[in-house]
């Protein structure tokens, strides 16, 4: 994984400082703990809590990203085994198992000390756990399970996930926003109570504004990737996405870095510079990549595969005009619910597609990004991310004649992904993409 053939994928220079910023997160939280500051363990929360953490000076770490890091560094196995020994079924989320194993070791073996072998300085014992109801059951069951090891209070962030028709029914959206705002208000009270800290509302407004701006820049950057050849490869997206999905620390500085990234991508568009040498196939990647086998993308890049867009759920909210919305919590609610969850529902309903949040956006991507195919990567231990991919494959074919290659793997358990086998399949998939290019032409589709 370390030895990447640099020329295969033309990486963005402006990506690297963002990457570095992201790696800072853990160090910062360790320092915070040393300084007696409270830290939170938080699930990726679609910005609901991040701004609040920032405004209250709570250093947050994100066990999901940390588990991904452990996996990428090959440090996960002992934690997975430990989780198994603790009596949790092995079919559960690899991130969760890694984190539960880590926590069991830290609390039961080491009396709360960070395990010496922990990558990136480790995650220090938190003062509070912030889980979420959105996007997966593990999102709250996992932190609830941590209660065996951590005697710290927990809050579960609520986020409605309506069906397409139901979510578009009269008044539903406003009702959802209202619900989230009420919840966030309680959440702030909860943090103030258990951490005896005060919320600085002005600062919150400013942070929310910065977040929105970051989201906008990041969104527009991804819009630029619609151009041919695609100027930015999914590898660069993944390297930077945590800056937006788990925004902590100095947002103003981050915002600058993302602006620089935008400029570099813009420059490439203007000069028709693609992220792979000869873009032969424009491919979308669905779900998280095999962190432990990223060399796959270099090999494919050599064969002209350009990954132009990736899973919807890891993208920033679609920017919306919130002028006149003064309550920062309401801004958050609208940004997260309206900008992400329900933002593509209208299109879905028109298309007669009912999986508005996770399924349908892939269809829009296929059109907008003129994709030749999708690389679907079901994560064998993550039902939330995978349960719908077989369905998505069918919809893409039925509706758009866009084929997808379905290769199973996992986010953490390296043993579940077979690189050689995957490469064989991609070879056959090229013939398929060629075929359906013709079919789409015959059916008068524009790509």
């Amino acid at each position: 994984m370390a030895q990447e053939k640099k020329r295969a994928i033309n990486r963005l220079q402006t990506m690297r400082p963002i990457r570095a910023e992201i790696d800072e997160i853990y160090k910062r939280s360790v320092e915070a703990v040393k300084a007696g500051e409270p830290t939170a363990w938080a699930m990726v929360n679609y910005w609901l809590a991040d701004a609040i953490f920032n405004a209250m000076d709570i250093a947050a770490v994100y066990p999901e990203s940390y588990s991904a890091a452990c996996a990428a560094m090959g440090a996960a196995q002992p934690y997975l085994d430990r989780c198994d020994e603790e009596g949790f079924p092995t079919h559960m989320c690899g991130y969760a198992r890694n984190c539960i194993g880590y926590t069991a070791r830290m609390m039961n073996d080491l009396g709360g000390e960070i395990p010496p072998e922990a990558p990136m300085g480790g995650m220090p014992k938190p003062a509070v756990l912030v889980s979420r109801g959105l996007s997966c059951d593990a999102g709250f069951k996992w932190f609830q399970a941590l209660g065996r090891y951590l005697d710290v209070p927990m809050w579960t962030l609520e986020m409605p996930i309506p069906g397409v028709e139901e979510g578009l029914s009269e008044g539903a959206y406003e009702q959802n926003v209202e619900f989230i705002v009420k919840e966030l208000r309680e959440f702030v009270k909860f943090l103030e109570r258990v951490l005896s800290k005060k919320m600085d509302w002005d600062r919150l407004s400013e942070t929310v504004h910065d977040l929105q701006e970051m989201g906008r820049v990041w969104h527009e950057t991804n819009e630029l990737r619609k151009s041919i050849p695609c100027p930015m490869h999914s590898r660069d997206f993944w390297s930077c996405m945590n800056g937006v999905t788990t925004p902590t620390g100095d947002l103003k500085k981050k915002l600058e870095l993302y602006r620089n990234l935008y400029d570099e991508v813009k420059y490439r568009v203007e000069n028709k510079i693609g992220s792979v040498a000869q873009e032969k196939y424009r491919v979308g990647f669905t779900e998280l990549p095999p962190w432990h086998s990223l060399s796959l993308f270099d090999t494919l890049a050599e064969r002209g595969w350009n990954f132009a867009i990736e899973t919807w759920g890891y993208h920033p909210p679609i920017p919306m005009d919130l002028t006149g919305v003064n309550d920062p919590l309401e801004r958050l609610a609208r940004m997260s619910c309206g900008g992400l969850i329900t933002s593509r529902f209208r299109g879905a309903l028109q298309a007669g597609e009912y999986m508005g949040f996770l399924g349908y956006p892939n269809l829009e991507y296929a059109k907008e990004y003129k994709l030749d195919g999708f690389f679907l990567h079901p994560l064998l231990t993550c039902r939330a991310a995978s349960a719908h991919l077989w369905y998505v494959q069918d919809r893409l074919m039925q509706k758009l004649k866009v084929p997808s290659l379905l290769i199973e793997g996992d986010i953490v358990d390296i043993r579940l992904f077979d690189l050689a086998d995957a490469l064989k399949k991609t070879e056959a998939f090229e013939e398929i993409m060629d075929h359906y290019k013709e079919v789409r032409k015959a059916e008068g589709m524009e790509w």
Partner: protein
Amino acid sequence: MAKESKGLTKVKEIYQDRPRRVKELKAEGRKVIGYLCAYPVLEMMTALDLVPYRVLGNMREPITKADACLPTMVCPFLRSSLDLALKDEYEFLDGMAMAHICDVGERMAHIWKTYRHYPYFYFMDVPHTVHKAALEKFKEEIKGFKKSLESFTRKELSSEKLKKAIKVHNDQRTLVRELYDLRKPDPPLVSATQVLQVMLALESIPVEEGNELLREVIDEIKERQEGPQKQAARLLIWGSIIDDVSLIETIESVGANIVMDDICVGTRFYWPEVEITQDPLDGLAYRYLVGIKCPRTCREVISDQTKKAYAADLENRFGYLKDYIKAWNVNGVILQSVRYCDTHGYEVPAVRDYLNSLGLPNTYLEHDYSQGSLAPLRTRIQAFLEILG
């Protein structure tokens, strides 16, 4: 013989051909609405003269068609349910009512709707906590469900009608408790196998008929001579849905009496009653969100004290099990779950912690929702019973 077996025979007949009755009713012009899991509000369907019919899987039927749109690494119960729908086993339904029970349940609702077009379909979101705001939100959700049913039936649902329906369903819940009381003696007057058949029968016929049936069954059990043998083990069975008697039969045949359960075709579904409130939706919202004790809902203990939070957490989540164990004089617990069920999977170590804190022997069985996977469990079960002595 005092009275020739009526109720239990009927129960068995219904269990063996669940859709028979609703198909008859459909022929008479009634509309049948399928529902999956415990969250769609039954009272509203009943009040609008619809027949709610619980959609289940079939562990005796290999899953084939569902493999086309669901992977094999998700809950086999849900896969099986969808599989039956795709095999047109549920074509007699006029509609489906689904709710956000779990990730796969949510995805599957949309998949179902895409491939099967019943005249009526509704997906209800369900909050993941019991926060105050969540409860208010859930009330809005069931209001939405009510609206959709009203426009489907083109009838207005008055709160009087709704309250009447609540009453009838509460009667059923009371009768079920009465039935469960017959399991308190040692030996219990009725086997868990028969109780499960009763529960599954209730979920296949209109509530009024169900109540009739329950009365017959209860009288019959009280009067009849033959009942289960005395056994050393008085078990409670906990976990994911059981919609086929074979697992229960397996356990009882090894030599135990299952006298209590915490599953959603048992107490989880029937225990919580609906308080008839000024606005009936308040009582309903509370019953369905807070009353139903499914691990899919997160019950945090929000307390300032940060010490000993775990013990409080366990008490808050599983306290009700203690009451069951006392009242039914349970001496061992079998935890069971279908493979790939996340909400139960994460729960298992915590439940075991709680049971151990009560000094109650317990064991965990995982199965893949197929007959074949049950046979190998016999040894585990028997060994567990040998531990109980």
